[in-house]
């Protein structure tokens, strides 16, 4: 009865509200999707058609040439290799540091817990800065090393706090108490009780770290100079961003001959279309994975927000 009444009363203005809302959402969807869609169709189109602006809604002059070009480049493969290496080992290190740390700091009765927590939290707001950090890595002999990017970025305090909050709120303290009464050591409690029960949060944190590692770029820019160690994001930057600047300069050069320009333009067209392909080549693993892992990510944000 009640429900019916409220439905009747609110019908008209609410219908307008709903319609506007759905229209806005469709607009948002278009804004989100179109750039991604455009990159996709441009990567499969004839470079000339893309550059003339003929490609807008679907591929024109379908070709996989740019993908063949991109996948034929050694740089891409070595970038892929390095990124996978960093992501695998880096995430493993991240978990090995973060999970025990979050567990220990969740123990309210631990003497010195407050001090240790502060030690970690300070680094969220204050740090040495770019140059002292660089000198530190330099002094440790970690510049331009195969393991440089694995070791740097070893722990994110934000992720550690999420883990701590999970241990505090989701695993009942009685469980540990009874284990202690039964004679279990702290090691045993951690490895045999806490870790199995923390599987959901471990998944969340692992994914957070892995995506961060995959997209990582700053550390690589600062600490790695050797071409063979460059991860995918640096390769991407060199192709997508630096090439572009070079090309613009060349086109603006008043002394360039006609032939040079037309030759360059042909190469430029090819280079441009390769850029569209490379965006998908580099982002595909994430774009394919994220629909499956996004719910874990959302979970992480929720746990994190419990203790903003």
């Amino acid at each position, binding site marked *: 009865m009640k429900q019916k009444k409220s439905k009747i009363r609110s019908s008209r203005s609410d219908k307008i509200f709903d319609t506007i809302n759905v229209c806005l959402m469709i607009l948002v969807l278009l804004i989100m999707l179109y750039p991604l869609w455009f990159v996709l169709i441009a990567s499969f189109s004839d470079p000339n058609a*893309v550059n003339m602006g003929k490609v807008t809604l679907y591929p024109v002059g379908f070709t996989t040439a740019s993908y063949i070009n991109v996948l034929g480049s050694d740089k891409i493969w070595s970038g892929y290799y390095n990124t996978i290496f960093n992501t695998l080992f880096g995430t493993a290190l991240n978990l090995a540091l973060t999970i025990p740390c979050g567990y220990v700091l969740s123990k309210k009765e*631990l003497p010195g817990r407050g001090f240790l927590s502060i030690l970690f939290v300070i680094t969220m707001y204050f740090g040495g800065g770019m140059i002292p950090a660089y000198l530190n890595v330099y002094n440790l002999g970690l510049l331009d090393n195969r393991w440089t990017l694995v070791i740097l970025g070893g722990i994110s305090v934000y992720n550690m706090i999420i883990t701590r909050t999970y241990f505090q709120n989701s695993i009942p303290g009685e469980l540990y108490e009874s284990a202690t009464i039964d004679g279990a050591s702290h090691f045993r409690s951690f490895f045999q009780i806490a870790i199995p029960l923390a599987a959901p949060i471990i998944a969340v944190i692992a994914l957070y770290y892995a995506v961060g590692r995959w997209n990582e770029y700053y550390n690589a820019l600062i600490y790695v100079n050797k071409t063979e160690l460059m991860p995918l994001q640096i390769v991407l930057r060199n192709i997508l961003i630096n090439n572009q600047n070079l090309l*613009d300069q060349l086109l603006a050069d008043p002394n360039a001959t006609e032939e040079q320009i037309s030759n360059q333009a042909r190469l430029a067209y090819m280079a441009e279309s390769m850029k569209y392909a490379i965006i998908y080549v580099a982002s595909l693993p994430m774009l394919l994975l994220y629909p499956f892992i996004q719910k874990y990510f959302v979970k992480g944000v929720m746990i994190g927000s419990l203790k903003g």
Partner: protein
Amino acid sequence: MRHSITTQPSAVYMKKKISQRPLRSFNKALSMWQLYVLILPAVVYLIIFSYFPMYGIQIAFKNYRVSKGIWGSEWVGLDHFVRFLTFPNFWKIMLNTLRISFKSLIWGFPFPVLLALLLNELNNVTFKKIVQMITYAPHFISTITVCGMVLLFFNREYGIVNAVISALGGEKVDWLSNASYFDALYVGSGIWQSLGWGTIIYLAALSGVSPEMVEAAKIDGASRAKVVWHINIPTILPTIVIMLILNCGSLLGVGFEKVFALQNDLNLEVSNVISTYTYQIGLQGGQFSYASAIGLFNNIVNVIVLIFVNTIAKKLSDISIL
């Protein structure tokens, strides 16, 4: 201390208790040694990679020479800070930094809130899930890729944007080399990338809206828009304030990566910010001490802003993060 206030049976007992406390907590710590072992790797890591660099900050007050090391270099006091503050471009760099982050905040902050409020009103669960999933996508794409897309789309010669403009009979626009478009591209692409992801926290807060209250309001004849305005928004207000504080905390911490990626010689006038300047001076120019001073200055201002904003928020709404 709190202990001694709550239990005051007799002075003798109190004295005994206090004298026993350090010993007891030492014994307790000893019995928990395994926990300290578990946290040890993380603490060591933190000391090496976060606190060693903090020790290195002293070079901001020295003339760092590689041969003499951090400790052996001579002190010069505040020279580097004075040099930065009197540097002719100081205000330009400062204002660029503030302008870019302020614009990102002003334009970037409201959209996720708005989208979350609207998403929450969708009746069709499947449609809602589709919108959420698609808006999350850009969050998983790297900053470099997003910047690369901006450069591709807005390229003067081959970009889709100019292609569409000229197809409609307009003049091609120099989006990338014209400094006046830098902010719009920077902020716009930022919104595109973080809009969907930013809604999660507000959607979580919106799940805390009491259904009884909404039902009651509806029976009283409130429209959907009114429910959103008078119930949903006040419910998520604390979350909004906390997010605002957190965002203000990094007001001077404009992301290096993105500005650096979008920077070119022609837009340097508006795109040179503290972090890119530090990079240019320090790592490319080798002036380690001067660059460290700039970095430290930046960091201190950030902390001050964070404390300031946090205090204001605490006074106004009793919400704080510190």
